[in-house]
């Protein structure tokens, strides 16, 4: 008796499961969705940055999927794209490791069947992950990986929003020349300090090339291992060479350590110009307090740019809700949101999900992008956004203040930097 009833129970249970499964499956199939994968370092040494990038893409999707008629952002007023298709995100974590990034990109495409991938923050991971996409003739949207090499591969389905380290190096040098001409700064020598990784090495190479081309002498080339516990000897090397300007590529905690060590050793160059690194992180700036002041760096976005980019604020309000602790967009994460918006706009304009058509549409149009400095996005045949811009800012009283180009200048650059003992 007991056996029979349990068997009957099992049979009923199986039927119920099957029915529910089929119904749920049918319901899911009817709903119009486009799956997009995100691939960021959600764990590992740059997890915070990766999580912010993921939140930025989620923010963009929130705006695209729902109707926000008051936002002056493309696709905000309507719900979804391609006649009501909603975007569904599938998140993946590459831990900052290229091999995992490659495996996850394959899984996203082959298993999760995502339409495109947005990622991957670390240039070293973006390389193999976008290779997978290119081989499958699928689209890879890259927000903020800055290695110039990424868009020198001749890929057809790869698009990058942010300026490269080459563009930034060029901007640094232009600033130096301008300071010499107009402010009599007498910059002659350059020192470079960088983390010895794909990102840092690339940035340093571009920085050296740009400085030499402009006739500046590179007197110090100082690599260090990321996650260093002491940067004493690195700063000593800089101090001994005493360059007028230092180009810095120190991420996260390394940036804090670098600044603190310079204070300890009581040395500063006349100007310190930073690539997209710890300098741009508002949390790190807050931690460093007054010590962070008078350092400079290129930025594609800061809350202080609000007057130039008035449409960012309502989107940023959503982003703030998605981050813990709540932070405004930074130059990196905002580019990932741009990547999502531009992809959605291209799909909408192409009117199809066909990869070649969407890629062609991306290449052939100039896109409205209120979240980008300059308001436009346009891709060169290599996939680089040629409208990508950044301004040189300097931290003055804890605020990112635009010091170059001149027409956008918010305050006079403080050069040379105020010495440690006079702060």
């Amino acid at each position, binding site marked *: 008796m007991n056996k029979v009833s349990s068997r009957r129970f099992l049979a009923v249970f199986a039927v119920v499961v099957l029915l529910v499964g089929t119904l749920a499956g049918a319901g899911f199939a009817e709903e119009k969705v486009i799956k997009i994968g995100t691939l960021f370092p*959600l764990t590992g040494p740059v997890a915070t940055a990766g999580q912010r990038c993921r939140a930025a893409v989620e923010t963009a999707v929130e705006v695209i999927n729902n109707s926000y008629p008051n936002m002056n952002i493309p696709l905000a007023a309507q719900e979804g794209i391609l006649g009501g298709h909603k975007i569904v995100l599938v998140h993946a974590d590459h831990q900052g490791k290229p091999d995992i990034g490659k495996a996850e990109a394959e899984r996203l495409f082959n298993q999760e069947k995502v339409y495109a991938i947005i990622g991957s923050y670390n240039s070293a991971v973006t390389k193999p992950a976008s290779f997978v996409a290119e081989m499958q003739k699928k689209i890879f949207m890259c927000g903020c990986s800055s290695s110039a090499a990424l868009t020198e591969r001749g890929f057809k389905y790869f698009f990058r929003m942010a300026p490269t380290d080459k563009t930034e190096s060029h901007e640094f040098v232009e600033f130096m020349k301008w300071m010499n001409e107009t402010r009599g700064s007498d910059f002659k020598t350059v020192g470079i300090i960088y983390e010895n990784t794909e990102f840092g090495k690339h940035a340093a190479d571009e920085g050296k090339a740009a400085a030499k081309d402009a006739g500046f002498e590179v007197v110090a080339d100082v690599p260090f291992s990321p996650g260093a516990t002491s940067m004493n000897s690195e700063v000593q090397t800089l101090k001994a060479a005493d360059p007028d300007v230092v180009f810095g590529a120190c991420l996260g905690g390394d940036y804090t350590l670098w600044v603190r060590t310079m204070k300890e050793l009581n040395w500063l160059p006349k100007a310190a110009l930073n690539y997209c690194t710890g300098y741009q992180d508002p949390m790190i700036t807050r931690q460093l307090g007054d010590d962070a002041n008078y350092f400079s760096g290129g930025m594609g976005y800061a809350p202080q740019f609000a007057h130039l980019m008035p449409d960012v604020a309502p989107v940023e309000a959503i982003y703030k809700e998605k981050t813990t602790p709540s932070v405004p967009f930074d130059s990196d994460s905002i580019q990932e949101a741009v990547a999502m918006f531009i992809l959605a706009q291209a799909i909408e304009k192409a009117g199809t999900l066909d990869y070649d058509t969407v890629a062609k549409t991306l290449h052939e149009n100039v896109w409205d992008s209120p979240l980008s400095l300059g308001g436009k996005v346009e891709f060169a045949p290599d996939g680089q956004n040629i409208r990508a811009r950044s301004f040189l800012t300097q931290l003055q009283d804890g605020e990112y203040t635009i010091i170059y180009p001149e027409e956008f200048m918010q305050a006079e650059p403080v050069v040379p930097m105020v010495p440690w003992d006079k702060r």
Partner: protein
Amino acid sequence: MKRKIERKDWLLFALIILFALLPAIPGIRENSLTMHVILMIFLMASMSQSWNIVGGYCGQVSFGHSVFFGIGAYGAAMAVVKYGMTPWPGALAGAFLAAGIAVLISWPVFRLSGHYFAIATFAIVEIFNRLFMVWYWVGGAIGLDYSITEQGIVNFVWYQSKVGYYYGALVLLGLVFGVVRWIERHRIGYYLRAVREGQETAEALGVDSTKAKLSAMAVSAFLAALCGAFFAQYNYRVDPPMVMSLDMSMKFVLVTILGGTGTLFGPLVGAAVLVPLQEYSRAFLGGLGGGVDLIIFGLLIILVVVKQPKGVVGIFSYLRRRMVERESVGKEND
């Protein structure tokens, strides 16, 4: 002297034939996650089996195997990226170089024993990592990236399908396990185990322990380098943190310890437990962020190591012993 084919050999043959037939199962698509997981099991099993020669049979716990793995990876990648050749000569050159370097390094390091030996091998990984980071001839910190070449066995790259990689990994598995099985049955295998059980005793019985250990290291490094070459080909890229890191060295050790050190099937069992755990937990939980996958992964390893230090193979033999005991008790009762 003719040797009998034992049950172990049959099992190994059967497994390899079974694996060879796996891709024919319709459910396993040629580029699926399952395919990736299985071939990662093969790779990881081969890596830890190569480590097992030194770490398991010979009892010398080395944390330096990622160096040899890395040299193999760089061998293949240099041939492809720098010289535009097929990876084969590079992989082979890398393997011989790794064996040579292993002997050179081990000569002084084998004078140390126990913990000191392990610490020295730790240091070697760091030295090589730093060296490769600033050695620009091999790409330095930027690493070496493959460009798109013709697919197939000649270039050993496939872009759309994983079947080529799958059989590549299976051949590697067969080779490494075959070599270890041969060592296990050969005189050298007995020497190695004798050294593990007590170096002084072994020497007193006429075993040249230095020679035994060095040859084990050379073979082990050679095989690890071949695994590294496969890894570079599979990921189309190599840079120092990817291959020459303590992280990678730990994988060699962890998989073997989990499966069972000094046993033929330990590395395969260890990889068959660890790799799916790692890959699937990342696939299903990694997107949540916060490393939930890594936490679960860590907890399971702690559980296995605490409950059965002899590894999963230890659990099997424990169960078998229990069954045999029960049978014999049953017979006595009859």
